[in-house]
């Protein structure tokens, strides 16, 4: 992806849905036509970005396979993804994080926690910076392994580009309510890690404000 001088994040995104993630989408959309399937996939990506985004599916995924992953390719633009901090510009370490933003907000839980199936989400994002911009700091890597749930996020400063990686694993089907506080804590750590900030220093000529 590419960060513009106005703070927009735009570029190509490939999402590969494997296993049950792919199967259920194929199942849900088996009676839909191409227009509806396209909208379905685009909405799914929009729901994963925590701010308003423009998403366009650009390939024709294989909706009929059962052995192969469902691969969707998009053009994505997130207006105003990087924001002002006076002379600096900052952007969060996590991009496709919206689903976890509002999970398990309430402190009390009555019923067991049930997931339809165990799953793992893995993000691998390369962001090119505007010419002349430099990375002032990246947050430290976060790793949280809580046995049945695990999370890691890392931002690396490469040459002219940032490399963001994030992995979230939910490896259970049902949890008793007594584990809810620990699970809630875990997702608070996830959210906190997703919101870690990368600090950029715009070039002199292009500094905003």
């Amino acid at each position, binding site marked *: 992806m590419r960060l513009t001088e106005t703070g927009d994040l735009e570029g190509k995104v490939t999402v590969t849905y494997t296993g049950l993630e792919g199967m259920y989408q194929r199942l849900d959309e088996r009676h839909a*036509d191409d227009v509806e399937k396209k909208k379905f996939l685009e909405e799914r990506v929009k729901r994963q970005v925590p701010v308003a985004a423009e998403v366009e599916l650009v390939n024709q995924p294989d909706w009929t396979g059962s052995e192969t992953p469902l691969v969707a390719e998009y053009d994505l633009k997130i207006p105003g993804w990087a924001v002002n901090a006076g002379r*600096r510009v900052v952007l969060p370490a996590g991009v496709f994080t919206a689903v976890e933003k509002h999970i398990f907000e309430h402190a009390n839980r009555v019923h067991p926690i049930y997931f339809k199936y165990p799953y793992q989400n893995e993000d691998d994002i390369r962001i090119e910076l505007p010419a002349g911009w430099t990375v002032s*700091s990246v947050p430290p890597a976060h790793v949280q392994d809580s046995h049945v749930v695990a999370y890691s996020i890392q931002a690396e400063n490469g040459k002219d580009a940032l490399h963001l990686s994030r992995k979230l694993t939910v490896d259970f089907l049902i949890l008793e309510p007594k584990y809810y506080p620990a699970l809630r804590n875990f997702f608070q750590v996830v959210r*906190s890690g997703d919101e870690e900030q990368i600090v950029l220093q715009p070039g002199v000529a292009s500094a905003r404000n």
Partner: protein
Amino acid sequence: MPATNPARSLAVLAMVAGAFAFPARAHAGGDAPAWMHAVVNAPPPNYDEKTDAVLLYSETNVTVVSADKIKTQVREAYKILRPRGREHGVVSVYFGRDRKIKTIHGWCIPAQGRDYEVKDKDAIEVSPGMEGADLITDAKYRVLRIPAADPGNIVGYEYEFEEQPFFLQDTWRFQETDPVRESHYSLQLPPGWEYKASWMNHAEVKPAESGNLAQWAVNNVPGLREEPEMPPRDGVAGAMVVTFFPAGGALNGFATWNDMGKWYNSLLNGRMESSPAIKQQVSALTASQGAPFLKMQALAQFVQRDIRYVAIELGIGGWQPHPAPEVFSHRYGDCKDKATLLRTMLNELGIDAYHVVIYTERGAITPQTPAHHGFNHAILAIKLPDGVNDPRVVATLQHPKLGRLLFFDPTNEFIPFGQLPGYLQANYGLLVTPQGGELVQLPQQPSIMNSIQRTAKLSLDPNGKLKGEVQERRLGERASAERWRLRTTTKDSDRIKPIEDLLGGSLASFYITSASLVNLQQTEQPFGFNYSFESPNYAKNAGDLILVRPRVLGQKGSGLLETKEPRLFPIEFEEPAQDSDTFEITIPPGYVVDDLPPPVDADYGFASYHSKTVVRGNIVDYTRTFEVKELSVPVAKADDLRKFYRIIASDERNTVVLKPAP
């Protein structure tokens, strides 16, 4: 009051969904009629790839036999283009005590193979439901499922019904979600009768007339695709209202709003006669109240809170309220029943009031709308006694003949007496008096009366934990919404859920350390949340810097217009609003502010947003105001609204940078 068009009400949608549970029985040899086959190869109207179906042909033939007997025949044929268009394979026809279905048939002409047919005996009957309310009605629907309603196929149906009308008027709604190739409407009147046709949201089309038969047709009518926050469908969809007049004069026909007011007023006759029990209740409620405002308020609150909302709408009961003594003794009623009881109780104090019938979405009725039954709600206009100058009386109108009127909705449990909920503000309603009806615009309240005022005193520690106290005061709809949400909660753990939701919307992690509600039951007072919280890792370390988002809570930005589709309809706000946040954040010892985000001043006329972050010693002060000033944003300004929301979204994520003190 019933929905404007029962055949298209929400109740029907719920019912139709259930109708899929019964199988369609196809009949061999049931060829579709010639009128359907005639359109099989007809060129469709203009449509795009997102169109679910096109209405190839529609025909409504109305025959007025007499003032109490009207026959109607309907024929429609859709070509299904996409899977979602299958819904046209289910036809639902409303019937009841005063409306009998004579015949109903459905057919499918598949792209390949023989036609299918379903008949009256294949249909089922269902009762409507009303989500979120108790409704008892004698109205039912006959539902017929047409087989093979698949993309590429054509489905059609024909039904006839006979009705004894409550009023001599019909509405031809020829524009719908799907594009229409051709739609026809004919009106056959008895000798000597006359009609008046009025058009809504469409240029007038002249009819072909022959004797007492008039025929209209429209072609290539574009579909109306739903957009979020668009005006109500009745405010944008093309339709024709046709009113019939018997020979020798008007009889339940509404050429004007005044006529409709007279008709509605006639339904109120005898409904507001008091009873000893009502008189006693009025005395009990008002005896200890001094000022007239307080007496009226006491009666209003009684009807708001002690009369449960239950709609029993049998026959004319969809339009006519029950007698006030019945409503009082049962302690239940619908909107018009509540209005009638409150009016009766006010009359006991010598205070006049008038029914106002209205639609609960602004924009369905405007001064350009022809007189017709476009209403679904009833409220009151109370003639204020001289000398009532209480500042809480806001929703008033100075009427040239009736004097100062206060509009009030007794069905809304949470609206303070003297104010109007957002959906009624600046809306048009029919003021019904013994002299007739008059379309009036209800007042729009100042934006500050619908408000969230949030103040927080917070402190940040070197590890990034933010903690402190927040006070919120909510007014108007902002208060009513929370009271409605909390109306059935009893446990403290449930009562803090709105606060958890609020914090969860803005904070990655948080713990509420104390929380309380203010004036949950006292609807005349501002509603409030007071709470304290801690948010670990709120501030982020970046080397030796600390990054802090000064907009701690609340979100005003919206992705409403973040779409590539061009906007077709104005964007409607439910009510004016004015919110403010004031956050005071004490920074950790040993740190100073290195950088602040810029102030934001965005004023687009219809709305404004201002924010400012300043440093005061070791405190960062963030203040912002958000105001909705106009209730509708025209399409031409949709881009401005999108920019406005982007500016807000950007400000909400802006950051203060702290560095170690030198």
